């Protein structure tokens, strides 16, 4: 499998570290979130047969966290973006 890093281009899987389901967002306000929201964020993960949005770290490259849309059945990657601008940072 290869992932096309937005900075570095197509790179082999061995340069990346899997970071799990990217569909979860950390509750912004500590006390505004309910226990259910925290439990959902910390523990509950989707395991779909098909399209999955997930984090990958380019640990053997530019060290960017990426959000990768991958089909778990075919391993086809349809989209790869930096997590940074998605999270509303300076790059967005």
């Amino acid at each position: 499998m290869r992932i096309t890093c937005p900075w570095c281009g197509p790179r082999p899987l061995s340069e990346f570290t899997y970071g799990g389901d990217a569909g979860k967002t950390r509750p912004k306000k500590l006390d505004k979130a309910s226990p259910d929201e925290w439990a959902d964020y910390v523990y509950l993960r989707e395991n779909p047969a098909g399209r999955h949005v997930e984090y990958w770290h380019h640990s053997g490259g530019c060290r960017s966290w990426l959000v990768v849309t991958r089909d778990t059945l075919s391993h086809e990657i349809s989209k790869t973006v930096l997590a940074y601008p998605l999270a509303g940072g300076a790059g967005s």
Partner: protein
Amino acid sequence: MSRQSNRLPEGGLIDRARSISFTFDGREFDAHPGDTLASALLANGVHLTGRSFKYHRPRGIYSAGPEEPNALVTLGKGGRTEPNTPATMVEVYDGLDARSQNRWPSLKFDLLAVNSLLKPFFPAGFYYKTFMWPRSFWYRLYEPMIRRAAGLGTLANESDPDRYEKAHAHCDVLVVGAGPAGLMAAREAARAGAKVLLADDQPLPGGHLTGENIDIDGKPGAAWAGGIADELKEMENVRVLTRTCLYGRYDGMTFGAVERVGDHLASNSTLPRQRSWIIQAKHLINAAGAIERPLVFAGNDRPGVMLAGAARAYVNRYGVLPGRNAVVFTNNDDAYRTACDLAAAGANVTLVDSRSADKSRSRAILPESVETQFGQCISKVKGRSHVRGLTLAPSGIEIACNLICVSGGWTPSIHLLSHIGHRPEWHEATSSFVMREPGDEACTAGGAAATFDLGRTLREGVAAGRAAAKACGCRVSGKAGIPKADALPDYAIEPLWRVPAAMTKAQESFVDFQNDVTVADLELAQREGFGHAEHAKRYTTLGMATDQGKLANVNALGILADLQGRPIAETGTTTFRPLTSPVAFGAIAGQERGSAYRPVRHSAMHSWHENNGAVFTQAGLWLRAYYYPREGEDFSAAVKREVLAVRSSVGMVDVSTLGKIELKGPDAGTFLDRLYINSFSKMKVNRARYGVMLREDGMVFDDGTVSRLGDEHYFITVTTANASGVMQHMEFCHQVHWPELDVQFCTVSEAWSAMAVAGPNARDVLASAVEGLDLSNDAFPFMAVGEGTIRGVPVWVFRISFSGELAYEVYTPAGFGLGVWQTIMEAGKPLGITAYGTEAMTVMRTEKGHVAGPELDGRTTAADLGLGRMMSLKKDFIGRWMAGRSGLEGAGRLQLVGLKPVGKSETFRMGAHLVNDLGVTGVDVSQGHVTTCVYSPVYGHYIGLAVLKNGRGRSGETLHVVSPLHNEVVEVEVVDPVFVDPGGEKMRV
């Protein structure tokens, strides 16, 4: 030396001018360069090459390629032993030494052939049925017995002295197979400008052309192929890999291949034996050709039976006539050419065709000397270690012969297209499974696409090459010249999955030769409910040998389909997975073995530790000084001396391996506040503080120190083992959670050497070495941070203590590490400064009750470890919410305590459990477990740390440390975890 009795007087692609010799089972034989072990053995009249896996039936050379199921030999000796090598793929060199396998005591006389007589007791699934009872016999008797009797070659117990290497290649178009289709495809794609890699598992280009008597463009096929290959090798954008097996296709157009670089050379001192390739391509052209299928009848495994195409290859490529009295048995027209070529080579040939005479399209090409029998099948074979004759059915005609050539049709090699999960489909006209790639990344040409006409194969190759080049963005122009090829007879196959049951014995009709699976086994699988293709495979082990069912699969599917009374298209196939052919572990490991398996990291002071007699221990990739034994000292004596030196005077330890991260930016403090349970944004400049990080689930993740070097400048240390994990975590938090924070950070672990100077005399030693920094207690109190120099070299000094003594950590740019270490050692000499290792450090941190790896096991919270008060409740931080869950605060948590044995001389074990009462058993009797146990020189007995249920309130209780595995019980008293200086006065003086 044996003469080559079966060598034809002329012909073949061998070098007749030179003779070489080799040994097989200790006997010496003659061969010519260009021979394979199989062709050389056949030239010398040797057919019998091995015994079968289960029944120890005599077996001979069956094919001329990588699909060989029978002629598996062991090559080399000692560490170079290479078992299970197909003799058909071994190029003979002078001095080659090969041995047959799976026979005892010898190939001709194999005592274990008695298994063959016991055949009724070894049906499919026999492992699960016959040998189940009594149960205890399985391990002691049945399994060892079966393992000795059934098997292939034996592995060497020594390490392989040869060199293997790895390489990567990138190309636009990967062409697999250098047969007519592959050569055309490669040339067309290359002419259009694409970067082409052509890989083929043979030493000669041409694919099956090397074994045929066919002309292309007026030249013999092999010569024509050689010309195209030479043309390709001249082109700058083409790489041709010969002797290279493409064993797997992986996601994202990544391929694995193994190149046999030095395997065929008699002596080889400079080249690697094999080279393992990872190939990245944009487009794949599968031109891997097709593999001939056996026909299934009783005795079809006897030496002297071989594939029709293989017999042709032995005549045409190697100039070997495998038998003078030959019968060709076929269900298609392709094998007619075998009859022609054998007859031309001087053999008496009878052609037996299972089809009726009107189905054959090629009778005209047969020479008059070839006798024909239509609508007949072989029902019986005479001869045990070699074929002597056969009987036909239904006619009952008997024919004396010493060679039976069979063709059940051809199976396209579609593995590379199916490895990534695509399913093949049934192609009725050619009775074969074919594969069409759903996307546009791969295509198939020639035999691999079930195209068995040479002219069409060449055209398909051209079209595939042009399409691939186009898909890679190249401009394809002009008209392609398509070579002229001899017209071949039509294929006209009529499926014959097995000779009908009424004619022949199912128990002796082999479907999978390598795993000894017969038609009777498949019938049994069907009767017992394991008729599904995937079930039958596992129940009978069909297709699970090293040849991966290359010969057996399609026949088996056809037989199962017939048994189920439905078309083969509906039974489907089993799944092809990499590796297509066996790959040696050596090639997979490459040069990453022994000391090169992984890098070893040394600190800048490593040479000093070595020169001073350190014993080293591994910490991740690092080698750290464990202890420094002096003459006559054992481990305990050395560690005791080192600890007492620190506690009474001064010592120094190398802590360069700590993970170090530097942070800068206006929001660096805020960022740290959100990472750690305690706060750093308000900490003064030139101060340090102990910090704890949690995981989001509330468990402790890591600990270390955080120092503030400037308003917007922090420096943190993290544990050696967690260094890369913490960095990754910090990057996640910054890039995903809080990208709005203006902070930058970087690993600087390798940039700094670090050493801790500890003990009551630490200040005196450092003060005499450090310039430009007042180390007095007032000016530089506990947890102070400052910059100075040692002999002009810049150093950062941190007043931090892990041992509980007055202590300083000194950091200097890594290149100065050794010099600074030596200078401090020199300065400490008058006070008896002692180098101490990681074990003395562990003893002292345990005496001080500091937690480390064994306590931070991912199941403990800050509160469990007595660090709960550090948690700042005024802010959010990673793990804050989950750490506050009632379940983690409630009663019953395992909390950090100290332990000391009631009997002063006793020791106890890390990992052992704590129980209240002896004699009570059950899953819930454990009160906790020992995390650390060391001998304390200060107290003169062992002490330990443990996590204990509600431990903080249980000081003074007596418990038992039990280790049932070692039959040990030790009485211990629960004490405060801080043994030494609980008030912390010593480190603050």
